[in-house]
């Protein structure tokens, strides 16, 4: 049985069917005129061989590719509508079905800053007898040990369904050469849920896939249970197919590992700020990538990956805590559904640098809304601050609780003949009792999980201790054991996959 996630009962949609068709038509026009600028020769050749109009632009070092609608529609025909994301423990697998609004929440994505929290005491200047405890936050460079800790923590966060590494590993002995194998091993060895990541160096792809095969039990087992998947942002918006990520897309597709084809234009700078223009462009970019993947390998498991943001008005940085961000993202989820494809979407990022009220408002704002519209895989949902520049593990613990509440909120109502009859009987029964209280009937629902527990980080009624309590919870979770890769498999990985740092070996003596 895969993870349950939450099956959204009634999805929220912004776009009407006519509007979706209008967006689709606009995207098709974009792909033909102006078309895309392709900086990858192999991709230009592939498009050309399948009938796309390709013109070399030597002065720009790229090819102008005009992709006809028929090519896109043909590719959509072969694109799988259901994608399985496997896991080291198969009960943690995720089934992403384009026709079913079952929502999974995931972490992400490679911040440089790890935000530690400390609890400190402060004494009032006006009354020395008044002392309060407050959370203080301390940024530092993210390291490999932090990634291991984030994976261990993620393993124990009940509502984290999939894992994308939330921190960039910046140890002195981590290089471009060994980064991929170490980051994947750190994640895989510390959690049994699905691991998704971008690839730093294309020439390390086969080593990472080999590692996954060893864990899965062979090539075929990995195909059956793809416990890793990749993300490539093939387009640099607007409409430029990047050489490096395009090549990664081609090679990953050839190896049969699931792939998120994402695009992340910024409304107002690299895409129109207007909703229709932004969504038409990102949709064109994602479809351009999906088309390429299917031309390379028809039937390849790819996921519609949408990460549209809005330009910050003071710094032109990506902005997540604004309503337009939600509008763009909801529309993308709808467009993915329009094609019957599962959607990798985005929610839960705060623009502010530290946890607090602003962060909570910004993250919940999108977590609720994007889940409500039925995105299958919502990344960025845990611990991200400062517009994705910072990861705070305590914030991730708080997010886990909030996402649990969101999942409860979206469950289908139980209103049928049997349930109503039981309620009527309950009401009649209670009316015969002296106190006329329904409290007794809470208990079975509480035990079955239908009634949510009290807010887990509530203070003592006069103080807001959310982060202090979440910090305690985080420390408790980090002490819990995790199921590592078994010793014999681990030993084989260290023997066959070059570049792994010995300190990652759980079974190393001394």
């Amino acid at each position, binding site marked *: 049985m895969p993870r349950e996630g939450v099956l959204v009962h009634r999805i929220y949609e912004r776009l009407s069917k006519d509007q979706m068709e209008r967006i689709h038509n606009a995207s098709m026009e974009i792909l033909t005129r102006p078309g895309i600028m392709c900086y990858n020769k192999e991709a230009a050749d592939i498009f050309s061989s399948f009938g796309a109009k390709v013109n070399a632009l030597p002065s720009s070092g790229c090819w102008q590719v005009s992709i006809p609608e028929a090519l896109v529609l043909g590719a959509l025909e072969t694109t799988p509508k259901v994608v399985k994301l496997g896991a080291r423990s198969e009960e943690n697998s995720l089934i992403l079905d384009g026709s079913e609004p079952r929502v999974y929440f995931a972490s992400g994505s490679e911040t440089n800053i790890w935000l530690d929290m400390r609890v400190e005491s402060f004494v009032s200047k006006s009354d020395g007898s008044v002392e309060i405890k407050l959370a203080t936050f301390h940024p530092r460079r993210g390291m490999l040990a932090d990634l291991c800790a984030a994976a261990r923590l993620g393993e124990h966060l009940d509502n984290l369904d999939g894992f994308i590494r939330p921190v960039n590993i910046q140890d002195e002995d981590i290089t471009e050469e060994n980064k991929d194998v170490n980051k994947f091993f750190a994640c895989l060895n510390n959690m049994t849920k699905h691991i998704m990541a971008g690839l730093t160096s294309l020439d390390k792809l086969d080593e990472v896939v080999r590692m996954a095969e060893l864990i899965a039990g062979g090539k075929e087992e990995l195909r059956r249970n793809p416990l890793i998947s990749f993300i490539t942002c093939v387009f640099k918006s607007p409409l430029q197919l990047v050489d490096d990520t395009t090549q990664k897309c081609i090679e990953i597709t050839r190896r049969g590992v699931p792939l998120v084809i994402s695009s992340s234009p910024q409304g107002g700078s690299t895409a129109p700020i207007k909703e229709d223009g932004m969504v038409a462009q990102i949709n064109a970019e994602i479809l351009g990538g999906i088309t390429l993947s299917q031309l390379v390998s028809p039937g390849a498991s790819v996921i519609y990956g949408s990460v549209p943001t809005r330009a910050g008005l003071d710094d032109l940085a990506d902005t997540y805590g604004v309503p337009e961000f939600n509008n763009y993202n909801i529309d993308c989820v709808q467009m993915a559904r329009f094609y019957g494809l599962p959607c990798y979407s985005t929610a839960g990022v705060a623009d502010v640098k530290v946890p607090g009220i602003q962060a909570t408002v910004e993250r919940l704002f999108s977590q609720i809304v994007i889940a409500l519209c039925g995105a299958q895989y919502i990344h960025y949902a845990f611990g991200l601050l400062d517009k994705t520049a910072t990861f705070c593990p305590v914030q991730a613990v708080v997010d886990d609780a909030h996402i649990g509440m969101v999942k409860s909120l979206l469950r289908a109502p139980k209103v049928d003949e049997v349930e109503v009859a039981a309620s009527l009987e309950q009401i009649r029964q209670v009316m015969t009792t*002296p*106190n*006329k*209280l329904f*409290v*007794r009937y*809470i*208990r*079975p629902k*509480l*035990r079955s999980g239908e009634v949510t*527990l*009290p807010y887990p980080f509530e203070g003592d009624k006069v103080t807001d201790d959310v982060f202090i309590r979440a910090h305690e919870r985080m420390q408790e979770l980090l002490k819990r054991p995790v199921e590592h890769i078994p010793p014999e498999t681990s030993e084989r990985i260290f023997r066959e996959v070059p570049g792994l740092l010995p300190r990652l070996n759980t079974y190393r003596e001394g």
Partner: protein
Amino acid sequence: MTDDIIEQIKQNVIQGRMDKEDEGFDGGMVGQPGVKELVQQALDMGTDPRRMVTEGLTEAMSIVGERFEAKDYFIPDMLASAETVGEAMDILAPHLAKSGMATKGKVIMATVKGDLHDIGKNIVSIILKGAGYEVNDMGADVTPERIVAIVTEEKPDFIGLSALLTTTMMAMKETIESLAEAGLRDKVKVIIGGAPTSAEFAAEIGADGYGADAFQAVRVVEELKQRS
């Protein structure tokens, strides 16, 4: 055999299972005897009712209290367990009287004049009963005159007054004054509670204690009992 049935009573109180219709925590216990049936069975077997109270009901409630403190149990669990104890005490009362074991004390509960909100008062009544007190719940909108009359008649050890509204909380003061005018104020301890009230307000109107919630109410009653 006696030990077995007392242990079963204890476990069923911990689970808050009133009778055989009760499905229990995990839903699979329908048909198995609950506290009501077990207490009756124990009596039929000639089990000492005092042992049922001390080793069954009281020990069970002590465990329930620990679980509540540890946040393993919530209010519905406490109330369900307390309700089973209240039911058991109703069955055992005549037998306990015969064996010379008195209840912990008699409490009159009432929501004061002009106020119809009785959820909080009902919960306190259940918890007090579960703690071994004899509780006479007079309901809501109870006038000071009715309270004076029942205190005269039943001679309770405690009165619990409840109010939810700022407009009715002053009826608590009126009730206490009526008790004083009737010469009954030193014969009964008055504890108040309800959303708009506080320990300060209790002191201001001359009440003997204040319970912020049902559990504090029981603690206050226990403390006042020890002091008297």
